[in-house]
C-alpha cells in the first residue's frame, strides 16, 4: 500500500479486503460503461473509421508534421530553460543579497513576471519583435515564445533556487563560516552546488510546465509547435478526434517521462543525503502547481 494509505488506513483485515473488492468492481463497471458510451458516440460520428487513423501509421505524417512539431516544441522548451536558468540563479542571489538596492529590484522583477500570464507576455513579445526588430518572420514566433517563457520561468526558477538555498540546513552555512570561508566562497563552493542538486527534481518538473506552455504559441503567435500541427493534419485528413488524441498522447508521454525522471531524481537525492532528514521536499507544491 502506498505511503499515503498507511497514514489514513489501518492494515486491512479480511472484511476490509472484501469491501474494497466490491467497490472496485462497482467502480470498474461504471468506468467501462463510460468508455463504451464515448466510443459509441465517436463511432456514430464516423471518427473511429480506419481512414481517420491510418495516416498516423504512415511515415510521411510523422516526418513532415508530427516530428517537426515535436522538434519545435522541444527546441522552444529547452532553449527557454537554458536561458532562464542562469537568469533565475542571478535573480535568486539578488533576492538573497544583504543590500536592499539589489534585493528590491530583483524582487520586483520576479513578482511582476510571476503575476502575468505567459500568454499575455507572448502576445506582447510577438508584436514587439514584429514592430521594433528585424527578426525574420520565420524566427519571430520562436522568439516570442522563448522570450515569454524565459521571462516567466526565470522568475519561477529564481524562486526555486531561493527555496533551495534556504532549505539547506543552516549548519552548512555555519560550518562554512567556521572554517573561514568568505561569503562568495561559501555561495559558490557550498551553497549553490547543493541547492542546484537539491532542486534538480524541481527544475525537471518545471521543464514539464515549460513544455506544456509552448503550446500557447499556437494561439496567437503561430509557432509551428506540436499542437499547431493539428491544423495541417486536419486540413489534409479531416480527422480532428484522431489528431488531437495522437498529439495528446505525445505530450502526455513526454511529460510523464519527465515527471518520472523528476521523482527518480528526488529519490536519488533523498538517498544520497541519508534518510532525507535534511532534504527539502524538492517537488515543493508551491512551485509544482504553478502552471
Amino acid at each position: 500500500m502506498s505511503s499515503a494509505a498507511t497514514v489514513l488506513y489501518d492494515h486491512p483485515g479480511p472484511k476490509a479486503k472484501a469491501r474494497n473488492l466490491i467497490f472496485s468492481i462497482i467502480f470498474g463497471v461504471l468506468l467501462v460503461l463510460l468508455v463504451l458510451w464515448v466510443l459509441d458516440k465517436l463511432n456514430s460520428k464516423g471518427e473511429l473509421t480506419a481512414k481517420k487513423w491510418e495516416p498516423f501509421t504512415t511515415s510521411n505524417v510523422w516526418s513532415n508534421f508530427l516530428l517537426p512539431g515535436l522538434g519545435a516544441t522541444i527546441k522552444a522548451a529547452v532553449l527557454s530553460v537554458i536561458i532562464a536558468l542562469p537568469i533565475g540563479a542571478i535573480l535568486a542571489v539578488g533576492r538573497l543579497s544583504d543590500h536592499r538596492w539589489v534585493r528590491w529590484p530583483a524582487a520586483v522583477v520576479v513578482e511582476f513576471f510571476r503575476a502575468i500570464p505567459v500568454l499575455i507576455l507572448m502576445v506582447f513579445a510577438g508584436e514587439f519583435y514584429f514592430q521594433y526588430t528585424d527578426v525574420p518572420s520565420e524566427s519571430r514566433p520562436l522568439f516570442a515564445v522563448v522570450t515569454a517563457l524565459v521571462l516567466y520561468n526565470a522568475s519561477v526558477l529564481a524562486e526555486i533556487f531561493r527555496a533551495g538555498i534556504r532549505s539547506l540546513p543552516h549548519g552548512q552555512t555555519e560550518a562554512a563560516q567556521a572554517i573561514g570561508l568568505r561569503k562568495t566562497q561559501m555561495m559558490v563552493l557550498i551553497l549553490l552546488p547543493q541547492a542546484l542538486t537539491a532542486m534538480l527534481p524541481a527544475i525537471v518538473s518545471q521543464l514539464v510546465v515549460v513544455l506544456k506552455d509552448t503550446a500557447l504559441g499556437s494561439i496567437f503567435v503561430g509557432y509551428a509547435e506540436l499542437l499547431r500541427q493539428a491544423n495541417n493534419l486536419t486540413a489534409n485528413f479531416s480527422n480532428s478526434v484522431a489528431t488531437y488524441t495522437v498529439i495528446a498522447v505525445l505530450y502526455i508521454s513526454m511529460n510523464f517521462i519527465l515527471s518520472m525522471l523528476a521523482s527518480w531524481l528526488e529519490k536519488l537525492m533523498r538517498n544520497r543525503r541519508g534518510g532525507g532528514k535534511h532534504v527539502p521536499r524538492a517537488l515543493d507544491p508551491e512551485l509544482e502547481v504553478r502552471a
Partner: protein
Amino acid sequence: MNFDFLSNPDYDILGAFWVTVQLTLLAAAGSMIWGTILAAMRVSPVPLMRGFGTAYVNIFRNTPLTLILIAMSVVLSNKLGLVLASKSSPTFIKDNNFRLAVLGLVIYTSTFVCESIRSGINTVPAGQAEAARAIGLRFSQVLWIVILPQALRSVVAPLASVLIALTKNTTVASAIGVAEASLLMSTMVENESDALLGVFSIFALGFVVLTLPTGLLLGWVANKATVKR
C-alpha cells in the same frame, strides 16, 4: 507611452477582465469540488479508484491546457454532443463556449487541487494516525478528528498558488474564442500598433491587480493556519 485607446468605445477592457474573473471564480469552485473527489479516490483503499485517480491526474496534468480547451469544443461538444447551453438560445455559442472553457479549466485545475490535498494529507505525520488508532479511534474518527483538520491547514498555501495559476490560465480560453482579457489584448495590439507598450502595461496591471492581493491574502491565511509541530 500612448494611452489614447482607453477612450475608444470598441475596447471594453473592464468587460474583458470581468469575463476573466468569472472564468476564474467558476472554475475555482468546480476544481475544488472535483479535485477533492479525485483526492479522495487517490487515497482510498480501493485499488481501482486509486488507479483511476492516478491515471486521471497523470493524463490531464501532463496535457497542455490549450489542447484540453480546444478538445472541449472540438471533441466534447461537437463530437460527443455535450452542450452546456440551450441550443435555441440566441446566445448559445457564446454561453456554450464560456461554459466549455470553465469545464476545461476545471478538468485541468482539479489535478493540481487533488495533488495539493494529497500532499496536505502526506504532511500529517504517520505518528498522528498511529496515536489516534492506539487510543481506539475508528477509521472515520481518525480521519475527521485527527487527520483532515491538520491536512486542511497545510493545504491553504498550495491552493493559493493553484488559484493564482488558474487566474492566469483563464487567458487560454481565448483559444476557443471566449472574449476574455488576452483575446481583447491580441486584437488591440494589432489595431493600435503605435500603443503596444501602453496596451501591454494596462493588461499586465490588470493581472497584477488580480493576482498579487490574492497571493498576499492567502499567504497570510496560510501562515495563520499552519499547525505548529
